[in-house]
């Protein structure tokens, strides 16, 4: 009888665990379902090619936000990728007390709430220039991307066997060339997926853009002027009282999710194929 009780407890426990795990996924499907349902109907060619219209008028698109998001990601990438990869190489090549501290600092930056990053970019750039700007938004997003790139570079290089380096040295190659032409290409798959993960994280970030990129209902490619971004459009339009604007926000949310989904697939499928096998 006691045995049965134990087995029953085990059975019950397993069922509860499965039930709870399935419940966890319900919000995911609800979110995806509602976004696809409301989003698809909002999307047409105008949505990608027109600027927003004032409330009350039908039609209009979010070209400004799409271009702005791409612009911001480009600025952030230019600032963060070369710098981040260099710091990553430094962390994997040099081992001393300073690099140990540096690793902790990378974790610190990763844990900083995104709104605080926004404040910092505001103090650094918006205040001195006295204007909201694409540049300040790009700096904020670059700061958010930096720890991801550093960590993935460091981890990718860490996995490369020492024999590869010895082989390069044995051929008479100097240190700089060994790192840049042998080690770095061998770790390219890991670094590239780190960069894409970084882009995936920043493309949906809203909080650091609220008082840096700020938003702009016109097309802008001047880094000193404010720009719009997809997540900003979602936020501003969702909080507005106009149903037409809500519809546009659903469309923007759909595009954003789609973008993230595509990036995710690229990370999983394409980048893995580049991976050098040892």
């Amino acid at each position, binding site marked *: 009888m006691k045995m049965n009780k134990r087995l029953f407890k085990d059975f019950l426990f397993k069922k509860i665990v499965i039930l709870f795990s399935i419940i966890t996924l319900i919000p995911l499907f609800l979110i995806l379902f509602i976004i696809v349902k409301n989003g698809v109907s909002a999307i047409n060619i105008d949505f990608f090619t027109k600027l927003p219209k004032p409330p009350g008028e039908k039609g209009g698109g979010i070209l400004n936000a799409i271009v702005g998001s791409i612009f911001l990601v480009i600025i952030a990438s230019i600032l963060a990728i070369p710098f981040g990869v260099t710091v990553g190489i430094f962390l994997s090549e040099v081992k001393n007390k300073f690099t140990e501290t540096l690793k902790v600092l990378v974790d610190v930056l990763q844990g900083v709430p995104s709104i605080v990053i926004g404040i910092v970019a505001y103090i*650094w750039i918006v205040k001195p220039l006295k204007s909201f700007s694409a540049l300040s938004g790009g700096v904020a997003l670059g700061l958010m991307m930096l720890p991801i790139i550093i960590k993935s570079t460091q981890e990718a290089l860490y996995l490369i066997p020492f024999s590869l380096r010895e082989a390069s040295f044995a051929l008479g190659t100097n240190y700089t060339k060994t790192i840049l032409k042998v080690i770095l290409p061998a770790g390219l798959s890991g670094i590239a997926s780190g960069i894409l993960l970084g882009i995936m994280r920043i493309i949906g970030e*809203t909080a650091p853009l609220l008082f840096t990129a700020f938003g702009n209902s016109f097309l802008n490619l001047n880094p000193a002027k404010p720009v719009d971004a997809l997540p900003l459009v979602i936020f501003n339009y969702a909080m507005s009282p106009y149903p037409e604007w809500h519809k546009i926000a659903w469309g923007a949310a759909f595009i954003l999710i789609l973008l993230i989904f595509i990036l995710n697939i690229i990370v999983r499928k394409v980048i893995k194929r580049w991976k050098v096998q040892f």
Partner: protein
Amino acid sequence: MRKDRFFKMVLWVSGILFTLIILSILIYLFKGSYLSIKTFGLKFLVNKIWDPVNEQFGLLPFVVGTLLTSIISLLLALPFSLSLAILLGVFYKKGFLNKFLSYATELLAGIPSVIYGFWGLFFLVPIMRKIEIKLGILPYGVGILTASLILSIMIIPYISLISKEVINMVPQDLIEAGYSLGATNWEVIKKVIIPYSRSGIFAGVLLGFGRAFGETMAVTMVIGNSNFLPKNIFSPSNTMASVIANEFTEAVKDIHLSSLIQIGLWLFLLSIFINFIGEIVINKMKVKGEK
């Protein structure tokens, strides 16, 4: 050789530059909040009035809002995260279900917070409003509980992924020893796996907490943005992060802006503290797992 020296120098300069960036974040946050620190001193932390018009600034309502939303969301997220971790780490270590659930969890972690907020605003808020009407309370819809619900959905992936990794670190021979004594799954989990990975799971929870208290957009959209001390878990409130998001661009007075920056400074310090403890616990766990 000279080229090598130059290359090494570039590496060192990048490392030093990164350190300087972190230092300057701290310095500039401090500088930005100096006016507010000088004016209010420590009273800033305990004052329960936040009134930009009369230049009265106190952090207390937001501390309470932040703590309530974070703790409630953690309590809500914990059973689900642990279930998911146990399912992926013990019951289904391989196979289709594992792949499917892992991928879904990853996807859940990748959804931007503004989309969670948007969904919460148009899906969860009306439901909460109906529940509040049934309970006979003022039907705001928005409020601490709504924000906590959204937050818990957002932090489940983080806690469960870390807990799963920690559970995978439990030595296989310990688990097999348990089974060889005739223990059931439940007994092995309760007597072997959970005690062994307790500190690691704690670290996961801590990091989940770190995400919850710094989360801005989703909370801002559903918490109701009220600067008063919340009366109960249904009342509208504000968290430290959401008040910054709400008022930063509207702050005209220097003292208002400075006070908001001071909130940012506290968020920064708190996030460092939480990450620090989390890392220490996880590193300890790693050493133990390698033995």
